[in-house]
């Protein structure tokens, strides 16, 4: 599987790149031979797993794709070490998700010519996610507008990002258009399946455990609403109280989680008439399979929950 291959290659590639960088240190006789240069594949670093998966699908064996974020850190809030940033500097291309995802990029010393913002031409489709203004000194008020960042949860948005990746890879990958075509077909198929499984869900009421599903919500017209609960933390009494208050005005029969909630949380949600369903965003490199298999598993869980939810709450 392409995604699985990407994951396996990560550590080896980082080591290879580190070795190349180390070899370039001054004072050492480290001039690469012509044949070694000829053999070297273009190296593409990404800031998220979905980008790595898409780049790998498009570039295939013609490129090396590296997504170095550790498995135990949310890539959206990850802060790479200086050494990791130096590895990014050594890449031929750095694929950015845009939409404010992986904010560390705006403070890393990276070559602007290597950065590819895959959401750059899609600003009209970005979803606002609150804004803050502060003022101090003579400069007046400063706006800090935010947009939702998990763009790939809308497969059609992801397909547009894939097109941007293919354009950037064109120089390095001769058959990029063919890889893009296959990828876009898969994403269109995924979109159709998600559309089918989500049909009618807006009436049932959808609640999100975290404000990361905006693009999924917008794409399938779910009209859901969100709290900020972590799967591995049991919500406090105050949080349950706030939820109960909101449920008086807003309907929710299904709650999407990034990970499996605790049994206690699950039980209490069911008491409130809410079925928890794990819908993994794919921000992390999956332990097995790739982005498509991850989404397939999400669809299966949604289908199952829909049946359960229908029986329990919508007879």
């Amino acid at each position, binding site marked *: 599987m392409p995604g699985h291959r990407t994951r396996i290659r990560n550590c080896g590639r980082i080591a290879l790149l580190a070795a190349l960088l180390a070899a370039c240190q001054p004072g050492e006789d480290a001039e690469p031979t012509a044949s070694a240069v000829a053999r070297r594949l273009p190296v593409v670093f990404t800031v998220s797993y979905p980008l790595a998966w898409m780049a790998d699908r498009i570039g295939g064996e013609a490129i090396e794709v590296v997504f170095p974020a550790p498995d135990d850190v949310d890539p959206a809030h990850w802060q790479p070490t200086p050494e990791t940033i130096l590895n990014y500097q050594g890449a031929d291309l750095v694929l950015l998700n845009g939409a404010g995802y992986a904010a560390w990029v705006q403070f890393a010393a990276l070559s602007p010519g290597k950065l590819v913002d895959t959401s750059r031409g899609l600003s009209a489709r970005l979803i606002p996610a609150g804004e803050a203004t*502060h003022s101090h000194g003579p400069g007046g008020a400063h706006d800090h507008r935010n947009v939702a960042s998990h763009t790939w949860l809308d497969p059609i948005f992801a397909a547009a990002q894939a097109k941007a990746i293919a354009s950037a890879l064109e120089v390095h990958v001769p058959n990029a258009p063919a890889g893009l075509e296959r990828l876009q077909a898969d994403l269109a198929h995924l979109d159709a399946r998600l559309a089918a499984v989500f049909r009618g869900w807006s009436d049932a009421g959808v609640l999100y455990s975290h404000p990361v599903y905006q693009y999924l919500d917008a794409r399938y017209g779910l009209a859901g609403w969100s709290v900020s609960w972590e799967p591995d933390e049991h919500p406090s009494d105050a949080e349950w109280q706030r939820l109960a208050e909101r449920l008086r005005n807003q309907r929710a029969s299904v709650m999407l989680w990034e990970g499996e909630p605790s049994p206690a949380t699950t039980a209490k949600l069911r008491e409130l008439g809410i079925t928890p369903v794990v819908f993994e965003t794919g921000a992390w490199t999956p332990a097995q399979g790739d982005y498509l298999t991850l989404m397939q598993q999400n669809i299966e869980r949604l289908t199952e929950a829909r049946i359960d939810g229908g029986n329990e709450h919508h007879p």
Partner: protein
Amino acid sequence: MTDILYLAWRYLLFNRWKTAVLITAITVTMFLPLALELVLERSTERLRARAAATPLLLGAPGSPLELVLSSLYFNGEVPATLSYGTVQAIGDTGLATAIPLQIGSRVGGKPVVGTSPDYFSFRELTVARGRPIALPGEALLGAAAARTLEVSPGESVVTESETVFDVTGSYPLKLHVVGVLNANGTPDDEAVFVDVRTAWIIDGIGHGHEDLSRPEAAANVLQRDGENIVANAAVIQYREITSTNLRDFHFHGDISDFPLDAIIAVPADDKSGVLLEGRYQAPTTSVQAIRPVVVMDELLATVFTVRQYVLAAVGLVGVATFATIALVFVLSARLRRGEIDTMKRIGAAPGRIGAMLGAEIALVLATSVVFAGTLTWFATLWGESLLHWMLSAGA
């Protein structure tokens, strides 16, 4: 032979003031054209080499010479800036790699050059100690700058305040030295390199302070109105970027509008260079694209013309000086007629007397040559810096 040299030496020593004046006059007459020629040749070679190694330079409309001197030699300032959006625009064309340059502040008199990692590969600069820049607040020093500032990787330097009389302006920023470059005999040796974002933070375009939306910042908040928070003057802006406060730094506005002094464009090939240059030739464009080597050739042509006049003038002065010195020796020989007659009477052959007078002249000339050579050597050491200073002062 030794006795002739001894007599000549004793004569010159006895008439030490006359000898000193003669040696000074001859030394200066030889030194001036020699030093001028050597210093100009070496300096122009290096100046031109750096310009020739920079294919295209983009800046705001204005004096191309000021743009070149500021961006390539870090001398002087550019009168106007262009926007960072131009870097993105060049990247979009696919014709060239755009390297941003923002040269504003100074550290201990050394220029702080904000740029991107591409600059180091483009100039073939290698790290001697430490590592390249990865994060804001980090600095990579040129070899001479590190020597002058007496800092090594792991230590820090502080930028000079540009706003002594502006209490509301930006403040000095503490920079962490992460590496020192190998010397390459160019103005890069004298520079303090930072990421372009660090340069903007130094300029006050970006800054860091505590998160005003958090409850613990309440003491520094004057007013909260929905999403708008008005802070009071007690909000302290961070003067150092660390791993713990990095996330509290932010920029205001669109990064595309942020200022740059110049952009070095490295075209993929000659054709791309011509195409890119053509895009910025329209009189209505707000960006000028120049070929630094052309600008430097024009400057050096002027310098060479001036040099010809100066050399001609020095040559005339030299001829006059040597004529005067010849006259001094002739008149001196006449004044010494009594001394010469005495030498003849005590048995000195006319040939030996002539040899003694010749030895006196030879000693004066030899000493002058040694002095002129030494001075010329010193001039080649310091002359380039002097020429850079003169060029920047005249720009």
